[in-house]
């Protein structure tokens, strides 16, 4: 369980970090919190020639909240999100979901950029990014670009990042004042990776009809997914027991989970429906969240 040999650099500017990644020609890897990369190295699933530690690169650890939404620097840690009270109103779905990420000690080191780049199919942040139509800001010596979260995750541990590119930030669009949202997941133990998780958001018009519905799932396919048929099952309808049940059934039918040692595919498929039902019901403000009122 010892990592293979590699060289180590700790650049103190973004330009130098990008230069090192470019010169590495695919053999250099960024190192942020190390909470995913170190286990990968310990299992020898990767053998990079050079680790480019981001710890001294300035400006990547800021949380900015403005008219364009919430901008999370790549080196913002779970701990920083948890402790920023502004996020409870500026990005409530994020704040709620991040409460489920990993354990205390890991939360002190794990970062936004690391989670996005690692792209674990059950990780919470990628799911929130997809549910929120967030943008991933990326830089390399060739310049900067922005990738829509929906185009960023290509599969398990696979993203649209080029080897010389660094994530600099994740931008969550402004949170509509009237949006209702909830995040639900099931894991064996708080802090463990979810067996599946679901993020739901919608606005309600005067007749309790859902608009702008978004439903996303983690741990239910090889990447975080928007559940489009479940969204259309709910969108434009009064949020009552029937609409919720139909959205849940659509969600179960739509996902493509895998068997693993924690749960079978059939179990996960069913679970996604249950979580969608719970999340919608909990997202509804009173009095709509009273099931019998539906």
């Amino acid at each position, binding site marked *: *369980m*010892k*990592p*293979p*040999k*590699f*060289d*180590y650099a*700790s650049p103190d500017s973004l330009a130098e970090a990008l230069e090192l990644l470019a010169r590495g020609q695919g053999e250099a890897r960024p*190192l942020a919190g*190390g*909470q995913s990369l*170190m*286990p990968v*190295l*310990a*299992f020898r699933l990767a053998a990079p020639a050079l*680790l480019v*530690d981001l*710890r001294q690169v300035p400006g990547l650890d800021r949380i900015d909240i403005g008219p364009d939404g919430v901008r999370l620097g790549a080196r913002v840690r779970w*701990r920083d999100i948890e402790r920023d009270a502004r996020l409870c109103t500026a990005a409530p779905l994020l704040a709620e979901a991040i409460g489920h990420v*990993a*354990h*205390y*000690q*890991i939360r*002190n*080191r794990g970062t936004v950029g690391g989670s996005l780049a690692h792209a674990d199919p059950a990780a919470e942040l990628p799911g929130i990014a997809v549910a929120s139509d967030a943008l991933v800001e990326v830089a390399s010596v060739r310049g900067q670009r922005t990738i829509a979260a929906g185009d960023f995750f290509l599969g398990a541990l696979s993203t649209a990042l080029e080897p010389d590119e660094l994530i600099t930030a994740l931008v969550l669009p402004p949170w509509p004042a009237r949006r209702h949202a909830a995040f639900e997941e099931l894991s064996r*133990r*708080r*802090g463990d990776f979810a067996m599946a998780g679901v993020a739901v958001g919608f606005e309600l018009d005067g007749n309790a009809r859902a608009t702008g519905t978004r439903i996303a799932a983690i741990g239910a396919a090889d990447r975080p997914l928007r559940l489009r048929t479940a969204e259309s099952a709910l969108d434009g309808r009064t949020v009552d027991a029937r609409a919720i049940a139909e959205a849940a059934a659509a969600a179960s039918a739509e996902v493509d989970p895998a068997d693993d040692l924690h749960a079978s595919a059939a179990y996960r498929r069913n679970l996604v429906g249950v979580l969608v039902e719970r999340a919608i019901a909990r997202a509804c403000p009173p009095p709509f969240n009273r099931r019998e009122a539906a």
Partner: protein
Amino acid sequence: MKVRFTVNDKPVSAEVEPRTTLSLCLRDHLRLTGTHVGCEHGVCGACTVIIDGEAVRSCLTLAVQVEGRSITTVEGLAHGEDLSPLQASFRRHNALQCGFCTPGMLTTAHALLTEEPHADEARVREVLSGNLCRCTGYIPIVHAVLDARVAYGGPAWTGEAHAHHGDGEQR
């Protein structure tokens, strides 16, 4: 590579490979074997140390990453020969059996109570969920941490009567 940092208030330096984890550096290079290594991939919590006030897994941290930082290991908790109030509470509550998980439990709880002396039982349980113990069943550990809060400026624990056996010296 040469790395310099502070361990338990003492400046130290070590000559390490970039791949040397902090846990290995502490144990093999600095001979501070109080930090235990269970899984070496981040799941057991036995290797927890405190870096500048924050509990982290030393097996998921490279020694070269802690240049200039200040580290507290389990060896840094006691005051000379006297157990710290947290350690004494672990003893009183029989919160250890084989002791393998104990360094990680103590460092995690010390970091928590230093920052959050009022942590309630739910918070203590959530925080300790990242530390595995194969012996105790966790209940005495949770009680020991709750009972130690008062030493950090937190509330006194009125807790479960059966967890105390009067004189505090057991068996």
